[in-house]
């Protein structure tokens, strides 16, 4: 590397070197130092409920197969045949007892074991040790409240440590009621931007809503939040690069459909009881689990991953979710809120794209590249709130979470991988 990774982020002054959004060599390092080491989101349990159910996804740019084996145990593997490296499974999802590679017919069980090698005896003289050539599993796999996460780093701390206090905040999205949530819809599309822009945006950019999304707010695609920036809104970060936007415990920030509004009022006591006293203090509406997994509850309810595809390309894989215990009409309303608000055609989401694209593209200019990115809003005013177990901003609009996101980014980029 010709670039000193430790000089790119100045958290003290809230300034970022714009090369981190455009330089290919920095992108390559991110693959090694961040995506190959962090816990990354794979899928939700409800996408693979029964034995044999599988989905394919990515960890960074690595293709991954997540499958529930015949015994019911979930595994995650590189979706790559061990023979010549062909992609093993080409479907998005399905159900399988075994997977057979299209090239030479090696067959792997839904537990990843190499079960079939044509002509093993005649051609390999049984010298190929099948037990050594099964699918490569992720280094660590874990489930938190129905969310499957994995990491390629065997040395990485366990998921619970990597989430830390973020775990409780995740509960407020996916464990509000008995049975948790289920996936209702899937959206996948490509954006011409660096992956960090959407990640930082969902992690704490309350500030852009009033302008980027004002048109959708004023035309009825959101009832907006009952909270005001002055009052209950806060940028909240439990550390480790994670961040959320929260409104007050008494506030609402839900999709506009009356069914949902009524439903939320009905279940509020149950939810607060389940989530505990902290739920009376804060109501998280959107957040990012470092590095590239975001959760949204305001306006629409989606989980999404920002898959890196190069310095200036990102794929969004987004899933609309609802409480499993919600009545059908509420689930349908939640689905429609997702489709209409946060999807490729979402009246909110469509307006984010050009901003992230142009924040990325302007970095190409040699003069523009020398202008630092400004994340100084509320600089130095964040405070640790023991009740929240997190640093909180002094005001509803702040870039305190941005600073934490890039501090963590720099921390990981500054230490070479094993």
């Amino acid at each position, binding site marked *: 590397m010709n670039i000193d990774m430790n000089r790119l982020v100045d958290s003290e002054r809230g300034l970022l070197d714009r090369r981190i959004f455009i330089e290919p060599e920095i992108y390559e390092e991110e693959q090694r130092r961040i995506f190959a080491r962090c816990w990354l989101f794979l899928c939700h349990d409800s996408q693979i409920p*029964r*034995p*044999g*159910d599988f989905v394919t996804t990515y960890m960074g740019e690595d293709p991954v197969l997540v499958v529930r084996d*015949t015994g019911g145990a979930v595994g995650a593997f590189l979706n790559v045949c061990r023979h010549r490296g062909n992609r093993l*499974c*080409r*479907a*998005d*999802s*399905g*159900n*399988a*007892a*075994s*997977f*057979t590679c*299209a090239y030479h017919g090696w067959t792997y069980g*839904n537990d990843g074991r190499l079960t079939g090698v044509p002509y093993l005896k005649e051609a390999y003289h049984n010298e190929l040790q099948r037990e050594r050539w099964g699918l490569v599993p992720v280094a660590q796999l874990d489930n938190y409240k129905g969310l499957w996460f994995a990491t390629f780093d065997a040395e990485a701390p366990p998921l619970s440590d990597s989430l830390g206090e973020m775990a409780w905040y995740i509960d407020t999205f996916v464990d509000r009621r008995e049975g948790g949530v289920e996936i*209702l*819809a*899937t*959206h*996948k*599309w*490509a*954006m*011409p931007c660096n992956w960090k822009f959407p990640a930082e945006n969902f992690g704490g950019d309350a500030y852009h809503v009033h*302008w*980027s999304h*004002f*048109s*959708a707010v*004023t*035309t*009825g*695609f959101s009832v907006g939040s009952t909270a005001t920036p002055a009052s209950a809104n806060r940028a909240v970060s439990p550390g480790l690069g994670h961040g959320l936007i929260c409104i007050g415990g008494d506030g609402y920030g839900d999709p506009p459909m009356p069914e949902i509004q009524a439903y939320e009022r009905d279940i509020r006591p149950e939810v607060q009881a389940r989530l505990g006293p902290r739920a009376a203090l804060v109501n998280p509406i959107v957040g990012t689990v470092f590095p590239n997994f975001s959760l949204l509850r305001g306006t629409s309810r989606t989980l999404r991953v920002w898959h890196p595809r190069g310095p200036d390309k990102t*794929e969004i894989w987004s899933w609309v979710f609802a409480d499993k215990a919600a009545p059908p009409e509420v689930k349908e309303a939640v*689905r*429609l809120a997702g*489709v*209409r608000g946060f*999807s*490729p*055609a979402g*009246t909110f*989401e*469509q*307006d984010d*794209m*050009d*901003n992230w*694209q142009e924040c990325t593209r302007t970095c190409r200019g040699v003069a523009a590249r020398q202008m630092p990115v400004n994340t100084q809003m509320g600089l130095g005013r964040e405070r640790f709130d023991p009740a929240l177990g997190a640093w909180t901003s002094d005001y509803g609009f702040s870039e305190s979470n941005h600073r934490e996101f890039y501090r963590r980014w720099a921390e990981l980029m500054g230490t070479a991988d094993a």
Partner: protein
Amino acid sequence: MRNDPDLIREIEQFLYREARLLDERRFDDWLALFTDDVRYWMASRSNRYPKSSKAIAILDPARYVEDDVTGADELAVMDETKETLAARIARLATGMAWAEDPPSRTRHFVANVEVEPGEADAELKVYSNFIVYRSRAESEEDFYVGARQDVLRREGGAWKIARRRLVLDQNVLSAKNVSIFF
């Protein structure tokens, strides 16, 4: 019906005119072409192995879904009523709909129009294929390609679109957004 040249022509002209209204950004006139009870629906497509595929041995055939455009709306990117279409149009008029400011340059191509009797008397079932070209900013280009199934209904002496079902022939959409109509 498929042998009534004049009716097919009439429907074609109706759809061509509708397309021109969109390309001229006359969205209110366009909206007037829909019935009040219209369902306007667009979905993308998934990658699924057919049951016959030997790429996998299906463990649980009973539950296996083969269709790549799930009827269950799982891949819908638009699912609109006349009200929400009207709200989308109102949004475009706020001067703050950034995805369309400056506006996209669109060109709608309506092709392979086929007409069949509808379920109701005054209705027709109309098949067509679409290519919608979208050019934006200095050099951005998107091709949206797929098929439409419309239900047209005779209302007050004119045809109206009572249902529109759009299938977009992509899995991971290549366009950064769908800020236009089809």
